[in-house]
């Protein structure tokens, strides 16, 4: 199973025609394309329509979660409608499943939210606004757990916009970590188990990390990966074909790479 992923493509009206050329031949390198939020610049439905047109008739399924930018226009329902009309599956607490070569993939998607990480996180304490902030994150984390548990699969992927761990934020200013993610998301992933967690949001962060429970985490923000998408491969089919994967293979088994 070959999973292509990218986040933070921030489409605006002027972005038409800028992304599709980079997706030519994706079907030779990946079985599915995951978009980890911030699909639009400021959450205008017109921006989502430009992206939907850009991805129309792509030969692999496209699955997405929204990011904070996609909420800025306060019309997330219309943004989702535009994406769905373009054939993009948008998840918020749901699970997308896909089978190929006898392998079953389940993608559990939520936007997530902030709050910070162990030892430096917000609590449901004090003003109602602070309680609402953390409650929102906790609710997203619970939906992530439920979505991960909803389907049996050979490969389970948690698709987020916000980060579940601080390691993939390295490069960002420490002061903004609480706005970039929450440990509650990692806890939700570790509670149920997954093979990979993908997120974006942290443009100056780092690509690789691992949850306390051992789940691999990748920050696929476009500025971090520096390419239109990154491919993550599970199993054997297609994973040992360097030509098909279009480049050098890097084997990551949690601790060692090379």
């Amino acid at each position, binding site marked *: 199973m070959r999973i292509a992923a990218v986040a933070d493509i921030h489409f605006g009206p002027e972005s038409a025609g800028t992304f599709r050329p980079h997706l030519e031949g994706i079907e030779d390198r990946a079985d599915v394309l995951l978009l980890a939020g911030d699909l639009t610049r400021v959450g205008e439905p017109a921006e989502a329509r430009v992206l939907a047109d850009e991805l129309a008739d792509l030969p692999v399924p496209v699955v997405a979660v929204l990011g904070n930018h996609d909420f*800025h226009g306060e019309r997330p329902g219309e943004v989702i409608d535009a994406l769905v009309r373009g054939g993009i599956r948008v998840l918020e607490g749901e699970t997308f499943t896909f089978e190929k070569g006898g392998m079953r993939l389940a993608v559990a998607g939520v936007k997530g939210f902030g709050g910070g990480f162990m030892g430096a996180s917000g609590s449901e304490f004090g003003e109602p606004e602070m309680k609402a902030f953390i409650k929102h994150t906790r609710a997203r984390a619970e939906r992530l757990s439920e979505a991960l548990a909803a389907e049996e699969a050979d490969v389970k992927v948690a698709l987020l916009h916000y980060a579940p761990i601080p390691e993939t934020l390295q490069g960002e200013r420490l002061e903004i970590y609480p706005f970039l993610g929450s440990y509650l998301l990692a806890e939700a992933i570790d509670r149920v188990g997954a093979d990979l967690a993908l997120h974006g949001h942290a443009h100056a962060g780092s690509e690789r990390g691992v949850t306390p429970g051992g789940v691999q985490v990748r920050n696929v923000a*476009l500025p971090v990966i520096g390419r239109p*998408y990154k*491919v993550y491969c599970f199993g054997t089919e297609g994973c040992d074909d360097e030509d098909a994967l279009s480049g050098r293979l890097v*084997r990551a088994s949690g601790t060692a790479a090379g």
Partner: protein
Amino acid sequence: MSEQPDAYTAAHVQEALARDGRVGELGIGVDISDHLVTVQGIVSTEERRAAIEQVVGELLPDHEIRNRIVVEPIGDAGEAEVIS
């Protein structure tokens, strides 16, 4: 009342660049000194780079603008990673 310190003005410009529908960028660095505004960061299109300069110019018409925003092109698909 004395003139607002440049640090506050820079923070408000940074917030405006996030909110303004022509830009919508949260990671733009803004520095102001002696009526010179320096903006820096990475965006994906030339149009967005120009929009940043336009918004800053509207907010601070009496300041000179040094635009150090970089437009970063998207690279090739590149290598894959096998997770086992």
